[in-house]
């Protein structure tokens, strides 16, 4: 399979060859897709012909892989008659390789509006969306079989999937197929085993240049969806002394890798790493930023370190906003958001009350800080007008809400604060 793909890439390096191959490919694709969707709708050639007010031989003619005299108006009429839309766009040559590599009648089919999960059949309506059902039908027998991992590799790269692959990354649908199963479903661990096995097979986990759905992204995202001890062991191995350590990875790979690392933590091994990143904004070998580090702290197991989160967040915002006039207000607003975030993330956590209490210890000072700031920098109508005029949209909303909470102070109050207050020690 890999051999065929690399052979095609070599062939397409020649301009005359690739242009001819692309012409042939498009002609064949259109003919095959009309046939595939027509059959999907249960229509005969005569039935489709009737819908576009033509005779059956006209359909027979265009369902020929060697037909080349396409007319956009006819294609639009066919698309409407088949209950879909015509998409005409220019593509890069790499896309031709992917397309040619994933060609099958199954992948050419398209949902009717009534079956389209974007419009109907959502889980909110108590139904499993069609793409998830489709994925389950393909995935579960494969998971139970002894076949090699090549099929998973193809799915994760967006190959052999029907049209739903366009709307969201392929790993989402693979993940959902398993996610809708009960917690103790054997498919979860089977999928993780296969994903880890596949990762071991790919060289250094580095994506192929120009690949639309790099394989490591799909694997890491699956690991993030289904955390496991095995996943944690593998990720430890990768980031500590494996091929990804210290590498400049393409952004999607890096982001997926960090998600997997964060969600799979089964011990506190990374706690000091996250705190270092928060304090220093970077780490020697782990390519993460402060926001990743907060996520890391939140997902520490067996319990998140809410104390560390609150402390780290404050340190980061002090360094970022400490010297700005709006700094204190932003700090206060951030801690308010943190509370909401904590409530949302850990709503079913057995120690929620304790965590909130600890977080509360860290954020008690916020109202005092804001009040002091208001007295120094926003004590008069003129100050407030000037601040609002110089603020961007986000700051302006924040200022308006602060001014609403702190009406204009009396002159006596203003005199009590001589300079910008120091933040309370944590």
């Amino acid at each position, binding site marked *: 399979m890999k051999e*065929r793909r690399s*052979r*095609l890439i070599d*062939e397409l390096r*020649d301009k*005359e*060859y*690739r242009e*001819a*191959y692309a012409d*042939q*490919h498009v002609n*064949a694709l259109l*003919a*095959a897709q009309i*046939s595939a969707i027509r059959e999907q709708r249960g229509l005969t050639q005569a039935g489709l012909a009737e819908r576009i007010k033509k005779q059956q031989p006209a359909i027979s003619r265009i*369902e*020929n*892989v*060697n037909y*080349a005299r396409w007319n956009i108006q006819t294609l639009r009429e066919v698309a409407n008659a088949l209950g879909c839309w015509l998409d005409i766009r220019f593509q890069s040559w790499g896309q031709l390789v992917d397309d*040619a590599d994933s*060609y*099958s*009648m199954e992948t050419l089919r398209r949902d009717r509006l009534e079956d389209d999960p974007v419009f109907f059949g959502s889980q909110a309506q108590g139904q499993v969306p069609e793409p998830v059902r489709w994925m389950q039908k393909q995935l579960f027998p494969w998971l139970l079989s002894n076949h090699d991992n090549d099929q998973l590799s193809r799915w994760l790269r967006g190959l052999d999937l029907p049209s739903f692959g366009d709307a969201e990354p392929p790993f989402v649908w693979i993940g959902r197929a398993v996610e809708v199963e009960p917690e103790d479903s054997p498919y979860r661990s089977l999928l993780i085993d296969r994903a880890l096995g596949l990762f071991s097979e790919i060289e250094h986990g580095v994506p192929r240049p120009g690949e639309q759905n790099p394989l490591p992204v799909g694997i890491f995202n699956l690991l993030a969806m289904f955390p496991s001890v095995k996943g944690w062991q593998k990720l430890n191995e990768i980031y500590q002394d494996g091929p990804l350590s210290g590498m400049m990875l393409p952004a999607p790979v890096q982001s997926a890798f960090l998600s997997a690392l964060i969600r799979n933590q089964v011990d506190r091994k990374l706690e000091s790493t996250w705190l270092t990143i928060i304090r220093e904004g970077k780490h020697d070998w782990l390519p993460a930023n402060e926001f990743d580090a907060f996520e890391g702290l939140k997902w520490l197991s067996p319990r998140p370190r809410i104390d560390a989160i609150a402390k780290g967040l404050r340190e980061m915002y002090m360094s970022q906003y400490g010297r700005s006039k709006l700094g204190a207000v932003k700090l206060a607003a951030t801690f308010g958001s943190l509370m909401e975030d904590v409530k949302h993330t850990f709503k079913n956590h057995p120690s929620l009350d304790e965590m909130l209490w600890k977080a509360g210890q860290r954020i008690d000072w916020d109202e005092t800080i804001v009040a002091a700031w208001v007295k120094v920098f926003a004590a008069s109508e003129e100050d407030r007008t000037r601040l609002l005029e110089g603020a961007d949209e986000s700051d302006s909303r924040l200022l308006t809400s602060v001014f609403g909470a702190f009406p204009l102070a009396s002159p006596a109050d203003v005199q009590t604060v001589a300079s910008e207050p120091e933040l309370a020690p944590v």
Partner: protein
Amino acid sequence: MELWDFRNGDRNEIFAWAQRLSKRDRAALNQKLDLLERLDFEQAIGLKLLAGPIQHSGHILKLRASGDHALRPLLCRGPHVPLHEYTLLKGAKELDRKLEPPGVLDKAIENRSHVRKDKERRVKHERA
């Protein structure tokens, strides 16, 4: 589907024929062979990628590829595992609805018979 080429001694006859084609013809042929690998037989017939069996030939099919010329390499299903493989037997073109070179259909029938008797008379398809 798996593709095989007829072999005469050490010579892969299909590869030798395809190598002599123009670049555009080779692109057309290879694209159609890529497609053939991915479709089942009924789909390939329905999409007119394959035509046949040619009258009086028994089992010989034409692959239809249109580049600079109307390429019609002759092939058969199997013959050893009919549902999962094709064997390309002889390179051919079509002009005025007639196969060229003359006698090519008889040669394809003969080649198929060789392959049926001796599996060694074919090799995995080699792309030109």
